[in-house]
């Protein structure tokens, strides 16, 4: 399979997943999109293994490695800060009568809000990875031009 065919295929999978997501919201069945997402990723993974004109050498492996490492280093700090905040909310014990020190609003910790936070963190992880990937690709000469 050619590289461009693979990219087109990924685009098609993304569009189909978006349609399934919409349908899943319509029928209010999250399991539908969850299974579809897993199948979509599996198809993309096996399609990726069949790409023939995508040469991966030690430089591209190093770029990936560095980008993943830096993403992880930044992400765990953000994730830890978020988790500490969430744990603080759970462990909150009012000092004195509850009348004067009411419990913090639980809406912040509702499953729906946690889902949004997780989605935001996932987006952050993707942005961090793309940013670091561009940085290291530039550092190791990905966009260098030559007279040839």
């Amino acid at each position, binding site marked *: 399979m050619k590289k461009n065919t693979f990219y087109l295929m990924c685009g098609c999978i993304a569009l189909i997943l978006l349609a399934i997501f919409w349908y899943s919201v319509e029928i209010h069945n999250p399991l539908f999109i969850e299974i579809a997402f897993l199948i979509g990723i599996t198809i993309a993974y096996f399609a990726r293994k069949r790409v023939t004109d995508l*040469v991966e*050498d*030690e*430089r591209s492996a190093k770029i990936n490695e560095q980008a993943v490492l830096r993403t992880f280093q930044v992400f765990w700090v953000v994730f830890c800060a978020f988790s500490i905040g969430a744990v603080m909310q759970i462990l909150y014990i009012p000092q004195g009568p509850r009348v004067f020190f009411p419990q913090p609003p639980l809406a912040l910790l509702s499953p729906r809000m946690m889902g949004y936070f997780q989605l935001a963190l996932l987006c952050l992880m993707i942005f961090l990875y793309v940013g670091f990937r561009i940085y290291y690709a530039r*550092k*190791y*000469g990905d966009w260098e031009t*030559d007279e*040839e």
Partner: protein
Amino acid sequence: MKNKIKVFRAMHDMTQEDLAQAIGVTRQTILAIEKGKYVPSLDLAFRIARHFRVNIEEVFMYDD
């Protein structure tokens, strides 16, 4: 780390693409090595030197 890949390529009348295909890397990697943006692993350095049938010290020079 300095290198003479460009010189050896010229001596063997090879393009970056030719060399890249011969040793199984991308053209960008050869370009990055030539420009000093990327220091190759020992394995890749040996493969490049062997391709030109010379010792590794003749292609790569350690810069103090």
